[in-house]
């Protein structure tokens, strides 16, 4: 085989390999969806985050607008501080936006749902969402139901 043809084949091989890697990153992976590098961060404190994980989606009206980037415990009041990275395109969330830890489906993965408020001012980098609603823990709910039922009988 001539040297040119050989070099051509090797070139094609490398291009095909890199194209496959690019396809994996963009089409299979989530590089093309919300990019955390181009995001602003707000925090929200919850009494209980349930099974919420870092990288869980943040949605508004069912549309994914960001990711959970960090979950910590507040050293003072022992609540969970959740840091949300929200895409820069959605920089017009009112300051009285509320956040809730929700579950997709009955047993699905947990995510943070945002509900817009009515204020004129918008949330900025580093702001804190004041109105929050904790995760519903199924076991506690069942426990409460049984407890109230037992009391009702007695």
């Amino acid at each position: 085989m001539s040297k040119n043809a050989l070099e051509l084949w090797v070139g094609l091989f490398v291009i095909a390999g890199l194209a496959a890697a690019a396809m994996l990153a963009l089409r299979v992976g989530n590089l093309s969806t919300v990019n955390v590098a181009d995001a602003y961060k707000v925090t929200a404190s919850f009494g209980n985050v349930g099974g919420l994980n870092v990288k869980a989606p943040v949605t508004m009206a069912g549309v994914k607008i960001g990711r959970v980037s960090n979950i910590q415990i507040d050293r003072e009041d022992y609540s969970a501080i959740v840091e949300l990275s929200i895409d820069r395109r959605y920089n017009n969330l009112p300051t009285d936006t509320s956040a809730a830890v929700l579950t997709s489906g009955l047993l699905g993965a947990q995510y943070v749902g945002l509900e817009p408020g009515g204020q004129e001012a918008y949330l900025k980098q580093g702001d804190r969402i004041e109105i929050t609603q904790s995760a519903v823990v199924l076991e506690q709910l069942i426990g409460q139901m049984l407890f109230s039922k037992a009391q009702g009988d007695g």
Partner: protein
Amino acid sequence: MTSIRLLGRWVIYSVQRLGRATVFLMSTLVGVFLILRRFPLIVQQVFAVGVLTVLIIVVSGLFVGMVLGLQGYNTLVDFGAESSLGLVVALSLTRELGPVLTALLFAGRAGSALTAEIGLMKATSQLAGMEMMAVDPIERVMAPRFLAGFIALPLLAAMFTAIGVLGGYLIGVGLLGVDSGVYWTSMQEGVDVYDDIMNGVIKSVVFGFVVTWIAVFEGYDAVPTSEGVSRATTRTVVIASLAVLGLDFILTSLMFNEV
């Protein structure tokens, strides 16, 4: 008594081989830096171990992806979860099957050829002839082959995974009626570029290093007879496959054990 002596002989032999293999690896790595000046040699070897392996990788990738689509669908549909088919196919391929199967096929297709070629060079005294002419055979023969295998395997693994995902798409969407958009979005929701794809790439880089090292060393260390070359070739495939599977377990437990 004899059996204990045999065990001792085997241990001494194995440790000696391991030591030779390590010394060989060091001088090959030095050779890799020296050979970078002679780029055409590397291109030639990438053709031999990479381009000629593409066909078997693409065909196997397609069929593995199609089988995953079929099996995954049949299992998931019982739970009404066939919308996760894309995720199942993509995760199994990026994390495990892509790197591991590519490395196994690579050991069989390219590794055995490397060992046989180098072993025959040794058996026909070509390596000794090079040394007579003051050409270092490690730099001239081993280093370009080693580097080529190291470059080729990650690229082949990426092709395998990409083709496999398309194979799962063909069966899942084309034949079994999973929605096309659901197939891709469930995949994008669940597959993380760093956690899953990058770790798969790291695995294939490690496998490329180990498989090529074993193949080139077995050839270099072969007994220079026709029987010795045939044994070395068999050993390459066996040891490389076992090394890939063992390393895969270690890498997986290091990478995916959080939570």
